[in-house]
């Protein structure tokens, strides 16, 4: 198939190696360097490797700083970039996020919506399925590869790798980068990306109700947050043992 319109949802997440937790268990997001969510990046790589005659938009929902990940997406080769941003959207849980994104996507006639299988900050993997319901699209989660010529998709489920016919329109979530992918933006991509504008979409542009987005549109409420004090596991170290006695220590456990 040619001339498909593909939307790739990318999220800005704090760099997990640099997040700090305050004494009272709050997440200190303020000064943490952020990055493009690795799974969203994989989705983008799948879109770009399959780009040829297709149109690829990168879309993010978040604060104005999230323009950084869209700039990166343009450098990677996305055609256009949109940031859904506004204080009305703050505090959205997965349902409110999906409903807000769906309001934007449904105005723009996409055939395919690519997402990461989950985002590394929330880890819920819920937004894509919810998005599929609100858009009335099919859903293919945990994709490892797609073939847009023969219209097939391979998904990695627990017991089987399942190959299905890809029926449009669809939401697809990716769990790994395309095979053999070492996509580095070229100098021309980089230069043309600089010239592109990131369009910012606000609450008024979406035609949704206040009670469908942000904290008001959320169906879950975080009641409390506590720091997990790691349980001190008393590890028994076997150091300096010879190979055979180390192996016997393992066999002892196996035999239980």
């Amino acid at each position, binding site marked *: 198939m040619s001339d498909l319109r593909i939307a790739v949802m990318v999220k800005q997440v704090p760099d997990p190696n640099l997040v700090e937790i305050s004494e009272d268990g709050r997440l200190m997001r303020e000064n943490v360097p952020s990055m493009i969510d690795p799974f969203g990046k994989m989705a983008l790589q799948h879109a770009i490797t399959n780009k040829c005659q297709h149109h690829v938009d990168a879309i993010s929902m978040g604060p104005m700083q999230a323009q950084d990940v869209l700039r990166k997406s343009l450098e990677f080769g996305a055609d256009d970039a949109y940031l859904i941003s506004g204080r009305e959207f703050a505090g959205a849980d997965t349902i409110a996020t999906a409903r807000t994104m769906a309001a934007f996507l449904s105005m723009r006639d996409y055939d395919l919506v690519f997402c990461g299988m989950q985002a590394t900050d929330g880890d819920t993997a819920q937004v894509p399925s919810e998005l599929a319901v609100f858009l009335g699209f099919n859903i293919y989660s945990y994709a*490892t590869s797609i073939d847009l010529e023969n219209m097939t998709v391979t998904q990695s489920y627990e017991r089987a790798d399942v190959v299905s016919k890809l029926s449009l329109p669809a939401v697809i979530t990716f769990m790994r980068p395309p095979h053999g992918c070492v996509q580095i933006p070229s100098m021309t991509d980089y230069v043309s990306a600089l010239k592109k504008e990131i369009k910012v979409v606000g609450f008024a542009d979406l035609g949704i*109700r206040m009670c469908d987005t942000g904290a008001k549109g959320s169906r879950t409420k*975080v009641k409390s947050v506590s720091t997990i004090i790691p349980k001190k*596991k008393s590890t*028994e*170290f076997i150091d300096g043992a010879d190979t055979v006695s180390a192996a016997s220590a393992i066999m002892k456990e196996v035999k239980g």
Partner: protein
Amino acid sequence: MSNCSGSCSTCEDGNCSSRLPPGMLAQYDLEQDVSDDILVFIESDSDGNVHPSVIGLLGKARQISSGRVFGVMFAGAEGRQQYDMLFSYGIDTLYHMRNPSVKDFQPLTFAEAIADLSKRITPASILISATPYGRELAPLIAAKLDTGLTADCTRLEAEGRRLIMSRPALGGNIEATIETDRFPQMATVRPGTFPDPEPEVGRKGTAISRPYQIVSPKEIISADVPSPGTDIGSAKILISLGNGIRKRSSVENAYRLAERIGASVSCSRALADKGWMPRSAQVGQSGKTVSPDLYIAFGISGAVQHLAGLRAKRIISVNRDRNAPINSVAYKAIVGDADAILESVLRQA
């Protein structure tokens, strides 16, 4: 009926439901009587074999339910063989969903059928295992019912019919406690989080056969089912290999050892990336969640993404580096060479 609190600016007319977004069904009426019951999704394969994670989930449902425990299972006639087992673990009423033309996991179809069932039986909560199927299915149902869903709960408590859900966030550094202000409240739970209860042999329940409609069928071309012994999700003992393995022959040794001791072989992403092990054997955030009794890690550093998929009762680590992160969660940490020790274990087995 409007669900907007007075502060909503765009629908003071109180007529929200006439403008529901596409694909969204009218939601649960909060005024209606919700039961105290809990509905559990009984994941099974096409032969009607129940996913092992369901048992622990049933135990939890039984423990926190102040009403009945319902189950919903999609299976052919073979599913009947599971009735007694499911009743013995606490199901009172099992909805056995039947449609002879469905052989595979059909996410949109199952979600629609469960949403319909839920409107009919009005459970207070719906619990689903966070397997790949479950994680795809649960948010479809939540969106159809316009209700809250909390992923990967590690604790579930109840105050009457109210469900209090806790889950780790941010690499396990914090725990968030979450509630939903709608019914049904929904949660997914990672396999192996709750212990299997003791079965109550001879316990009776009711099974109800229900037909369901197919919506947006997924057309499956092929499914590679792994050969026995490679199913790492249900293994009791796992021999797991990481980048610290330097000899390719160690992979072969691991499989031979597995055969002798009744284990399966898994790996870290680093080793799957190298092509030494199949992707299907990868443990972790972008791999599988495993919950063996014993996890023997050879040359695995224990990155957060790897540990995200690990729910082992006991971990033994073999690592050259005494300070490898995996050692802080291990019960025994052997400091030494992975290839040599693995070879020696094989000789002793």
